[in-house]
């Protein structure tokens, strides 16, 4: 394709090469046309100004748009600035009002010409973002009159991303204006096909009636290709959203999996530990905002250990204060922790108020990048990384530290572990603290994508249960698999069933799944099961 376009580009370059002096002369010639004082003369003057490529061109056209362009019979143009005037060609202020000054008259035809001229000028704007937007605008409008300007812009373009869009715009114009050669049209179809999005699809399916059959066939084939690609991208996109949801579920559920796995305790206040973590982030950010704004990008790094400590300490207090009296009575524990969650919610509501609190994204977490048709927001991306990081860290703690060893021993056989000299009450307390602390750091992450309100925890608690129950108790891998498979399944169901129905289907699936495997995907075997 490049090879086919190359001669065109070369000719265009040759046309553009004339030196600055020649450019200024062209501008003067064009400005002289305004003196003709007829609409057709004005229109050719506008075209001339644009074609001159002079840097004054945009100002002149904008002045015309604002009805501030004047001319004198001797072929000079002036722009009204405030109460004085400046020379349109040079931009220099004129000391006294020129004689026989007349305003350039405007009608609808001229207004359209001005609009087209502005589009063309923006195509050449020094700002790449503006050029990109202008090229996109031409792609959408498929305005045949901007073809010439577009080709000039393509020749002069250095930014490959902008150039691609400009070429697509040119292809769109060629395909819709009619009268282009079959070869050009075929090349254009290819360019559009490579664009491969919904706009390209609508362009190709709405080609004008007089398009040659060969081009129509090519377009048909291109539509097939684009549809295939779009289907693929939607799968990729669902998978990405699913991963993102899965990572959130993983963060919310992993602490629960630990406490449930080791102690057989269902901690209904787990969601509130997440909420405490989120509010810790809020408080840290508030202090940074007022005391040390330059630290803002580090706010999350500061909040992480604090959230872990706050939630972890609250967890240990809960364990020592309430849960340890209820061992062997899991149902009562469930009720007591539920009561605790109500108290924590109401306490936060009383202290911070019932409304959502503002937690900001640090600069490295805001924004998005695009890979093909997939938009990846940085906060989601970092949360996936973070969730996996937490998971791996936890796995290492359980595997390689003596605390982890004791925890695993208590999980497998509490009585035997106790007989071997492990202080099971302390393991329980610290396990509960660890699980709660992890919920706290999950809260730091979730504060970046969710509303920080007293109800934050509630919205995660049922989902986290589902993950733990689905994945199986006492096995972190089960939680990982459970979180990601539920997240991805949810997002793949959404396009077909809608968000709510998709969620209902997942819940029904889990209820049925529990019947088949009452202890989850990765069940502990042996005596621990009957505990």
């Amino acid at each position, binding site marked *: 394709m490049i090879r086919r376009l190359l001669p065109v580009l070369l000719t265009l370059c040759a046309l553009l090469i004339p030196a600055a002096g020649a450019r200024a002369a062209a501008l003067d010639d064009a400005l002289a046309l305004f003196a003709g004082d007829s609409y057709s003369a004005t229109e050719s003057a506008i075209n001339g100004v644009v074609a001159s490529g002079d840097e004054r061109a945009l100002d002149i056209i904008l002045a015309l748009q604002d009805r501030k362009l004047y001319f004198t019979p001797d072929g000079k143009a002036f722009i009204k600035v405030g109460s004085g005037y400046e020379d349109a060609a040079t931009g220099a202020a004129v000391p006294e009002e020129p004689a026989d000054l007349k305003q350039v008259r405007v009608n609808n035809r001229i207004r359209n010409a001005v609009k087209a001229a502005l589009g063309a000028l923006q195509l050449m704007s020094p700002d790449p973002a503006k050029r990109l937007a202008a090229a996109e605008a031409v792609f959408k409008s498929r305005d045949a009159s901007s073809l010439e300007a577009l080709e000039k812009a393509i020749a002069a373009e250095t930014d490959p991303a902008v150039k691609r869009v400009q070429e697509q715009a040119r292809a769109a114009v060629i395909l819709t204006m009619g009268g282009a050669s079959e070869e050009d049209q075929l090349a254009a179809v290819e360019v559009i096909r490579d664009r491969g999005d919904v706009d390209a699809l609508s362009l190709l399916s709405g080609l004008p009636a007089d398009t040659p059959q060969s081009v129509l066939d090519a377009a048909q084939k291109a539509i097939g290709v684009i549809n295939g690609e779009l289907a693929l991208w939607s799968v990729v996109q669902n998978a990405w959203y699913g991963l993102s949801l899965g990572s959130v579920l993983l963060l919310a559920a992993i602490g629960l999996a630990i406490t449930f796995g080791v102690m057989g305790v269902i901690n209904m206040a787990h969601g509130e530990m997440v909420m405490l973590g989120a509010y810790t982030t809020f408080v840290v950010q508030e202090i940074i905002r007022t005391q040390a704004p330059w630290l803002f990008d580090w706010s999350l790094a500061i909040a992480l250990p604090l959230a872990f400590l706050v939630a972890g300490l609250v967890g240990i207090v809960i364990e020592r204060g309430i849960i340890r009296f209820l061992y062997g009575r*899991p149902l009562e524990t469930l009720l007591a922790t539920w009561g605790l969650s109500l108290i924590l919610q109401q306490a936060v509501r009383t202290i911070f108020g019932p409304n959502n609190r503002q937690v900001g994204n640090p600069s490295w977490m805001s924004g998005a990048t695009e890979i093909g048709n997939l938009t990846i927001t940085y906060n989601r991306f970092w949360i996936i990384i973070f969730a996996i990081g937490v998971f791996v860290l936890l796995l290492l703690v359980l595997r390689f530290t003596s605390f982890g060893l004791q925890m695993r021993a208590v999980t497998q056989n509490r009585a035997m572990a106790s007989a071997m000299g492990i202080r099971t009450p302390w393991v329980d307390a610290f396990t509960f603290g660890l699980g709660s602390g992890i919920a706290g750091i999950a809260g730091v992450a979730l504060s970046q994508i969710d509303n920080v309100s007293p109800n934050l925890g509630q919205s995660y608690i049922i989902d986290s249960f589902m993950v733990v129950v689905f994945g199986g108790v006492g096995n972190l891998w089960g939680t990982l698999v459970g979180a990601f498979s539920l997240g991805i399944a949810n997002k793949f169901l959404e396009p077909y069933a809608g968000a709510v129905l998709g969620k209902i289907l997942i819940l029904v699936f889990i209820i049925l799944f529990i019947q088949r495997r009452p202890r989850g995907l990765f069940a502990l075997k042996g005596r621990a099961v009957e505990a």
Partner: protein
Amino acid sequence: MNFGRFILGGTDRTALIVLVFILGFGILVPVLNLMTPESSPVHVPSYLVPLIGKYLTYGLLALSVGLIWGYAGILSLGHGAFFALGGYAMGMYLMRQIGDRGVYGNPILPDFMVFLNWKELPWYWYGFDAFPFALLMVVLVPGALALVFGWFAFRSRVTGVYLSIITQAMTFALLLAFFRNDMGFGGNNGLTDFKDLLGFDLQADGTRAGLFAASAVMLILAYLLCRWIIGSKVGRVLIAIRDAESRTRFLGYRVEYYKLFVFTVSAMLAGIAGALYVPQVGIINPSEFSPANSIEIVIWVAVGGRGYLHGAILGAVLVNYAKTYLTGAAPDIWLFFLGGLFIAVTVLMPKGIVGTLDQAKSRLPGLFKPKAAPRAQEVPGE
């Protein structure tokens, strides 16, 4: 089992007191409301009648949970779903009774369906214009759901917290489903603006007093039914299951059938409670399905005393009275109070009010006669 024994079988002093108390309430409140002048000191104001009536339906709901939790060890965190389903069945009948008196005046379609541009009644609304059919659905729908759900759950031996969690998932799924407008149950507004029941105006004092009496009667009947169940052989097996499920199974009992039976009966009772609740409160909406509601029911039972049927009723009335009082007097305190109640009851008073009193009595021999009713046992490691 003849009717006489059903009424009197195993009747002891406690049951008699409970029966007399509820019956007295059921007669006194309507009579004092209708028969006495407003200036009289014993007059019961009209606003109190549906309020106390609501407590009675809550008592019935608590009874249904108390039956399965206290005597079969099944902790359902989804009983609010059965309550709400019964309520919706009654609500659908009441909606059909509105007829062309709705805002849009459509003789067949309820207002929200006209609003959503529905052209005809969905099939599952057929028959709800007939009161007997609606009554049948009030018990059948929750019963059928409990039967299917329980059959799956108990057959595969899902027990303990796992069962609690999936019952919670069930009510959560129903909550989401009933929020959908497409379901045809009024979306998040639910069903409301009811006019009359069997031709009686729902706003009239007489109708309200009648509903109150009906609630009291249903509560009595349900109480007797539960007593009869737990006093029968089935009830003995259920208590055995609660205390040692595996052992009962090894003794040759089909544990799942017993659990399924009592779970289904309990769901039906909850459905009846919902059906009595809706006309007295005047609205049913999906928030009744919320998991938090269902957990609250459990705490009523825990406060009153797990393993005592009258404890469940007492707990429901007390906690809800506190709720009415506190949400009016100090709304911020209510959640602290409720949360504190959950913790205090489970940690300090695991047998609830009735159980604690009972214990106190047995420590003072001679003051009270020893009881004959089956006593709740400490449940070792479920």
